[in-house]
């Protein structure tokens, strides 16, 4: 809140000697990270309010896990040292593993293990890269590294090591398979945390580290990211169309949305990156809301299968309204946050590569198709299932949590200015550094 706008420097920097003098504990925020921190601190209370419906056993432990999780996530978004970043990035696995494993559904053990081992496997290579950076440049301080730069010959390998970690976490095709499993088996609140916050760590990492530290490598691998993002957008959208399980459908839609994010980041344009950040915030709100909405009907009817529902509009009119807003937000209707993010990303993509942008636009259509079809099957149609008739409309706390999400989705959909102002200077700075490094590199080659 007290952040100085339009400043490119990191603010509120805390720098302490930590690992016997050679690695410092350094945290600080700028215009980009403040948004993610606010998102984290906004979603967590909502999770805590919705806890009492979905968690019946060991509530105390669950709340402890959520709060530890929040601590680590905030740590990720404000760390300014690679080792500190890695520490928080990995530590988040522990509470999430427990959340899925203790309070999850039937196949929770399988999902928790898959989640843990996939992400750990991705991350260990990043650790090798971080240590290598330390020995190459003599520091792991991000700000110093921005100034020093890393020699071009090392960048490709280091970039790939970071990429392996972020790609799993994003998740990008083809390492996305842990996400649907984790989402389906996690309790509602766990899914919300996972979708709204955890998935954003990698997108944030791409902007801050991949672009900031390895500009030359980022340029080299742009096409790879484009292709993987496009496959994610088209393929997972098609997969989402065929899902029978609501949570799985939303999980696959998350992969598609994150595909847009990675696409936008690697357009290396002002619009593309701003759009990506906006899309991440938007996805944080919308997917959280969608998972909560699924949770609402799941608690009443104890199934997530789409064909067990139908015609809810006649018995749950309030639910139908909020669910509609979220559906429209997810498919990117103008007036919701989803539109602005996707629009900016596509704008950035058109500037760089028209073919890529056109294929990505197809994803928007597919997104509309699976979301609207989901909405139609669950909310509209004949109310002909006897067991559904006893379902009650939203309770007070559900109204509170869901409307707390409706408001920002619509508000920032119409008036994105506050968010844009916050990120503008930082994005511009990132891009300037990026272009500066590229030009320098070209000059040194000539």
């Amino acid at each position, binding site marked *: 809140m007290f952040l100085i706008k339009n400043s490119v420097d990191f603010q509120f920097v805390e720098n302490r000697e930590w690992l016997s003098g050679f690695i410092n504990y350094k945290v600080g925020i700028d215009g980009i990270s403040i948004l993610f921190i606010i998102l984290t601190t906004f979603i967590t209370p909502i999770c805590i309010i919705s806890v009492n419906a979905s968690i019946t056993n060991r509530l105390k432990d669950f709340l402890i896990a959520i709060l530890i999780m929040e601590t680590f996530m905030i740590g990720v978004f404000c760390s300014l040292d690679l080792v500190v970043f890695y520490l928080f990035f*990995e530590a988040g696995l522990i509470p999430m593993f427990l959340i899925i494993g203790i309070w999850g559904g039937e196949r929770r053990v399988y999902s928790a293990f898959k989640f843990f081992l996939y992400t750990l496997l991705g991350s260990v290579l990043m650790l*090798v890269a971080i240590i290598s950076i330390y020995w190459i440049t003599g520091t792991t301080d991000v700000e110093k590294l921005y100034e020093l730069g890393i020699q071009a010959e090392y960048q490709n390998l280091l970039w790939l090591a970071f990429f392996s970690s972020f790609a799993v976490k994003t998740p990008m095709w083809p390492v996305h398979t842990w996400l649907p499993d984790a989402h389906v088996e996690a309790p509602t609140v766990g899914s919300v945390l996972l979708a709204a916050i955890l998935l954003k760590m990698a997108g944030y990492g791409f902007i801050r580290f991949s672009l900031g530290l390895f500009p030359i490598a980022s340029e080299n691998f742009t096409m790879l990211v484009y292709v993987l993002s496009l496959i994610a957008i088209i393929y997972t959208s098609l997969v989402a169309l065929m899902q029978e399980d609501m949570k799985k459908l939303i999980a696959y839609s998350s992969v598609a949305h994150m595909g847009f994010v990675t696409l936008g980041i690697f357009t290396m344009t002002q619009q593309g990156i701003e759009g990506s950040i906006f899309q991440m915030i938007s996805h944080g709100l919308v997917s959280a809301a969608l998972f909560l909405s699924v949770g609402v009907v799941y608690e009443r009817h104890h199934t997530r299968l789409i064909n067990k529902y139908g015609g809810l509009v006649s018995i749950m009119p309030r639910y139908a309204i909020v669910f509609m807003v979220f559906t429209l937000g997810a498919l990117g209707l103008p007036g919701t946050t989803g539109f602005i993010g996707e629009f900016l990303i596509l704008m950035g993509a058109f500037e760089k590569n028209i073919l890529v942008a056109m294929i990505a636009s197809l994803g928007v259509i597919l997104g509309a198709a699976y979301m609207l079809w989901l909405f139609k099957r669950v909310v509209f149609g004949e109310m002909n299932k006897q067991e559904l008739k006893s379902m009650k409309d939203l309770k007070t706390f559900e109204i509170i949590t869901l409307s707390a999400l409706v408001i920002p989705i619509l508000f920032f959909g119409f008036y994105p200015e506050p968010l844009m102002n916050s990120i503008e200077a930082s994005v511009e700075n990132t891009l300037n550094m990026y272009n500066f490094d590229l030009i320098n590199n070209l000059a040194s080659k000539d």
Partner: protein
Amino acid sequence: MENFQYILPEIFISISIMLFLLVGVFKKNSASLIYNLSNISLVILLALIINLSSLDTIYLFNDSYLIDNLSNYMKIILVGSGIFVMLTGSKYIQVINLNKIEYPILILSSILGMMIMISSNDLIVFYMGLELQSLALYVLASFNRDNLLSTESGLKYFVLSALSSGLLLYGCSLTYGFSESTNFDQILINSTEFNYGTTFGIVFILVGLAFKISAVPFHMWAPDVYQGSPTSVTLFFAILPKIAALSVFIKFLYTPFANMNDQWQTIIVFISIASMIFGAVAAIGQKNLKRLIAYSSISHMGYALAGLATVSNQGIQSSITYISIYLVMNLAFFSCLFMLKRNDKYYENIEDLSGLSKKHPILSFSLLIVLFSLAGIPPLAGFFAKFYVFLAVIEQSMYFLAIVGLLATVVAAFYYLRIIKIIYFDPEKEEYETSHNLGLKITLAISTIFILAYFIYPSGITEIVSKITMI
């Protein structure tokens, strides 16, 4: 005579051992008394060593005995963990009827042997210490003589260990033959030129040491001995001989054979990689917790050796840090194991942990912390241990070792997670007893807090260890 003041700790512990033996012989039912006295004498021993640790490097007895930063630090953690081993096991040996006078005395003699090993600067002195600790360990392994597994483990350890001692002795004699001295520094001076004799000597000595540290491919004894021995002895096996053997490893590699690092570096890298991978893979199928921790210790020794393979001070220091954190994690793990008691029976299968978290939240939380730490997940102490090692390994551009090591941690994470799964996700079983003796509780509390809070001030150990330089 002035030499004697520097080996006061060793003299003190020798006299204590003899005194306790006499007391044990002439006084009936004095087992508990001797146990407590031994513990007190270990505390005094620790104080004596700390008292000496401010001094510089001192050579004693014709340069055959050396007191320096390395030996002081290693002795401090050796005796320190010895105290905790005694504290945690005191109730256990009473319950399973092992409370005999020989038990603490054997532990003390073994510690004395290890102290001699750590300080030795001469092949003969080194071998004397090694045999003293090994002989005590053979008896300790089979101490529960009514138990078939314990007897088997003692015999197995004896036969294999004697074989490895033989190899080691053969290596020593080759080294002596080709370098014309038994003194470490003298060997270093005399072995400037390459010759096959000394190379063979190095190989045989390394084989013997790798056996003591249970590194692949000389690890076969570890699972059986760990499982068969009484748990308190297993804890002893898991920590103290490892400290001594690692210390000797450092000493051998960086004093007499420092010029020959081309010869031994490949061997250490191979042993290290093989241990990391084998320990991780073989532990997956285990059902017994003690057996599992044996495989886990094999893989942990792989990481400790990875630091030694770097031929740098940074690497040596990282190995020493690694073993320091490793011993705390083992103390915490075994303290939890000692708490799985019901009706005077101790449980040690993984299945016995099923649903532990419902009735025993604090014990389960400690186990959770320890297991994640053993797996090397940040922000726990185990992560920093691995971090230092890989920092040193990557400094020397040994990327293959680093990447294989880190991938092995992912495999290893699987079996640690499996235990956590059984504790937290599975249906609960019968309750265990909740009243434990104070020593056990204190050990568990201290070690868990150490692991959990290590990230707040991680430079503590590093600063002490950074004084140890060998190159």
